[in-house]
Structure formats: structure tokens, C-alpha cells
């Protein structure tokens, strides 16, 4: 197991060539529910020594089949003058490759296409998602490969790695630890996720995480919060 984890970390490190942006985001799970409709709100606040970034996104998604969903997001960011405006649009598709619990681990993929608002700057990414359960513990791993291009940015490849260890204590309270690796960034921190089921397929999911850059040389904290309503 440890050798496996180590190999994963090495792989993550070799992939870490992300040059800009914020690495901390959501850790994706390789699960798709059939007939799923959902609205999602993500909030991310990052505080470094020099700046304070606030980014939010809202999205609507629905499943196309039993194993594939698509989701559309609007991304907003607060700029230097404290104005909040639309920054980018994103199209995302998740694909559940294996049935949940059938194999040693559950696998999935996620594809994203993002365009910056008013700029010729594009970003396409593909992520491999894995989730392994050990009793009431879950380990979720995401490997992302990202390509950026356009006239307004430098064309480049980037890589990212995300990991979440979660203890499924109660549906509403699942404490976890999260790790994010990108270029010049290794962040780790406590997180909490939960789910409240209502009648039929209606459910509310939340995630809260507080990730700190590990080197600690300069201050770099990210608070992330996700609310998802599925129906």
C-alpha cells in the first residue's frame, strides 16, 4: 500500500508543471448518478502575503446517461478594485468508467474546457479519478493534465494532483484531509464534507476545506466551500 502511495506521489510530482492560477479546487469523485440534475456553487478565498483572491462559480449539470454527466459553469472573480464580475465559462463532463464497488478501485474521468471572458485564453484539461475504499475510509485521487492556449496567454502544459482521505463517519459529517500539488504549490489541510438526503433523489452536499501551502515560507491559505443540490 505504501509503495503504491509513494508511486502515486512521485507521479504527482512529475506531473506538477502548473505555472499559474490556483491549484486548490474540488477533489472529484468517480461517481455519476443516473437522472441527476444539479446546481452547484463553489466559493474559494485565497489569502497570500500580497493579495486576496476571491473566486466563485455557479454551475448547472445533468446526466446524459447512466455514466456520463455534463455541467456548465460561470466563474466569477473579484478584481483589484473589489468589483465582482464574470471571468470565465467552463464546460465539464464526468465519466464513470467502472461501476461503484465492482473492482479493486472505482475509476472515472473528467474533461473540462474553459474560456476566459473577453480574452482569447483557453484551457482544456483531462483528469483521471480514482477512489479506493478501506472499510469506512475512502481515498480519492485526481490526476489532471491541463493544456492552455490562446493569443492572450502562453501556450503550455500543466499537471496537477489532488488527494483526499476521508472517513465516512456519518453522512452529514465526513472529516477528511486534502492534499493539492501543482507547480510551486503543495498544500494540505483539513476538510469536511457531508450530504443530506431528502426524498427521492434530492440531496444537498457540502464541502469545506482549509488548505495551507506546506512550505510555510510565505503565507498562503485557501478556504474552499462547495454547496451542491441534486434533484
Amino acid at each position, binding site marked *: 500500500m505504501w509503495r503504491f502511495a509513494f508511486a502515486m506521489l512521485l507521479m504527482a510530482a512529475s506531473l506538477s508543471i502548473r505555472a499559474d492560477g490556483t491549484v486548490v479546487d474540488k477533489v472529484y469523485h468517480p461517481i455519476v448518478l443516473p437522472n441527476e440534475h444539479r446546481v452547484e456553487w463553489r466559493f474559494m478565498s485565497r489569502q497570500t502575503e500580497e493579495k486576496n483572491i476571491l473566486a466563485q462559480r455557479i454551475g448547472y449539470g445533468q446526466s446524459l446517461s447512466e455514466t456520463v454527466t455534463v455541467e456548465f459553469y460561470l466563474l466569477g472573480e473579484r478584481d483589484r478594485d473589489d468589483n465582482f464580475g464574470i471571468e470565465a465559462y467552463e464546460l465539464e463532463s464526468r465519466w464513470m468508467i467502472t461501476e461503484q464497488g465492482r473492482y479493486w478501485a472505482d475509476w472515472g474521468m473528467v474533461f473540462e474546457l474553459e474560456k476566459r471572458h473577453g480574452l482569447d485564453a483557453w484551457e482544456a484539461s483531462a483528469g483521471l479519478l480514482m477512489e479506493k475504499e478501506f472499510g469506512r475510509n475512502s481515498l480519492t485521487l485526481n490526476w489532471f493534465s491541463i493544456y492552455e492556449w490562446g493569443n492572450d496567454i502562453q501556450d503550455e502544459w500543466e499537471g496537477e494532483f489532488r488527494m483526499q482521505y476521508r472517513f465516512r463517519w456519518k453522512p452529514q459529517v465526513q*472529516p477528511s484531509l486534502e492534499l493539492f500539488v501543482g507547480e510551486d504549490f503543495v498544500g*494540505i489541510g*483539513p476538510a*469536511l464534507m457531508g450530504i443530506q438526503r431528502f426524498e427521492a433523489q434530492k440531496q444537498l452536499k457540502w464541502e469545506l476545506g*482549509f488548505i495551507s501551502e506546506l512550505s*510555510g515560507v510565505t503565507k498562503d491559505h485557501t478556504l474552499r466551500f462547495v454547496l451542491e443540490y441534486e434533484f
Partner: protein
Amino acid sequence: MLINSIILFLRDALPVFVLASFLLAWSNHTKANHHWLGWGTVLGLSGALILTALVNVISQWQEGAGLELILFCSQSLAYLFLILIVVDFCRAQHSHPAFALAAFAITVMLNGANLLVYLWGYWAFEETPLALILGTVMGLALCFSLAVLLYLAAYHLLLNGARRAFICLVLLYAAGQLTQAFTLLSQVDLLPSFPSLWDSSAWISDESEVGHLLNSLMGYEEAPGPLQLLVYFLAVGLPLLGLGLSRQLKLGKGRN
């Protein structure tokens, strides 16, 4: 404001949550009741309220050293109670819940007072206390999340018979807290301070979150002075030595 509130929470409340996880693992393992948790919280919070209300006056005592003295005495008491728990646990497999209650209540009081000063101080002046409320709620949730994971780890240790490892964890935690109390005395010149022995900030900085976590768990300090180091090792070593000796005596008696 939001992130700052969360950071303050993680810093100040973490020792309470760490202790709660250890004590919960211990009390679940020994099938003791959980009254200490509830009562400890209630007593500790009441103590924190009283301390916060009086802190303005107390801090002026002894030429400004009053608060440090009180914090030092309380922390030493908490340390003693933790040692009593450990000793009892080693000798009789279970400890008196009153010790847990006392140790927990004191820890809640000391750390709670610090947070209350912040919350009270800023509640009135913040135009929108929303960030403060949200920060408090989120900070609580995150501390809770860490505590559950830590509890699992500690309980796992006990379940697998690694009692010694568990006892060492508790001792390291207790010694770390006690050492910090000694630093408070240097701050008001009741103890001499010496130049630090080394500086490991290049590896783990006190300022980093890992540094904070290690500090809460076992009193990690990037640049400790000789006095701190001495207190720390005595605080861990003496109880271990005592336990070892009493064990040998017992074994010796058994043989005769």
C-alpha cells in the same frame, strides 16, 4: 477577516480538540462515561467567560505579569491532572473521570478565553459580523474534522494494544502545553531567557500550519531555548521514569 478568524480558531482551539480526541479515545477504550466531556466544556467555558471578564484587571497585576502567572498555574494544574490520568491508566487500566474533567475544563478555559477576547473585541467594531460568525462556524467544523481523525488514530492505537504509544502521545501533548506555559514566564521576566539552541524553521516553521499542528500535538518549537528543552524533557521523562520504576518494583515483588 474570514480567513483570519478561521486561522485564529485553528490556532487557539486546536489544543482543546486534540485533548478531547485523546481523552475520548481513552474513555471509550476503558468504557468510562462521557460526563467529563459535557461538564468539562460547561465548566471550562464558564471559566473562560470569567477569565475574559476579569482579564483586563488580572493583566495589570504583578506589574503586568498577573495573567501570565494565572495561565502558568492553570496549565501546570492541567499537566498534573493529565499525569494522574496516565498513571491511573497504567496501573489500573482505567482512570478517574474527574481527572479528565479537570484537565479538559482547564484546557477549555485557557484556550477559550483567548478566543473570547478576540470575538468580543471585534464583534462590536465589525460592521458586518457575518465574517466573524462564518469564520467561527467554519473554524469549529474544521477543528472538529481534525479531532475526529485524531480520535480514530488514537482509538486505533489503543485497540491494537499500543498503549505505550498512546501514553507517549498524551505525555508529549501535556509536555508541549506545559513548556509553552514556561515561555509565558520568560515573557514577563519571571524566568530568565536564553538564546535558542537551534533553529529548525527551515524545515518546519512555527508559522506554517504543520508547525501549528505539531505545536498543538507535541509542543513543537522551531527555536527552543535550553530552559524550554529541559522542561519539555523532564515533563515527558519524569512520568515515564516513574512508571517504569513502579513497574519494575511490581515485577520484582511478583518474582519474590
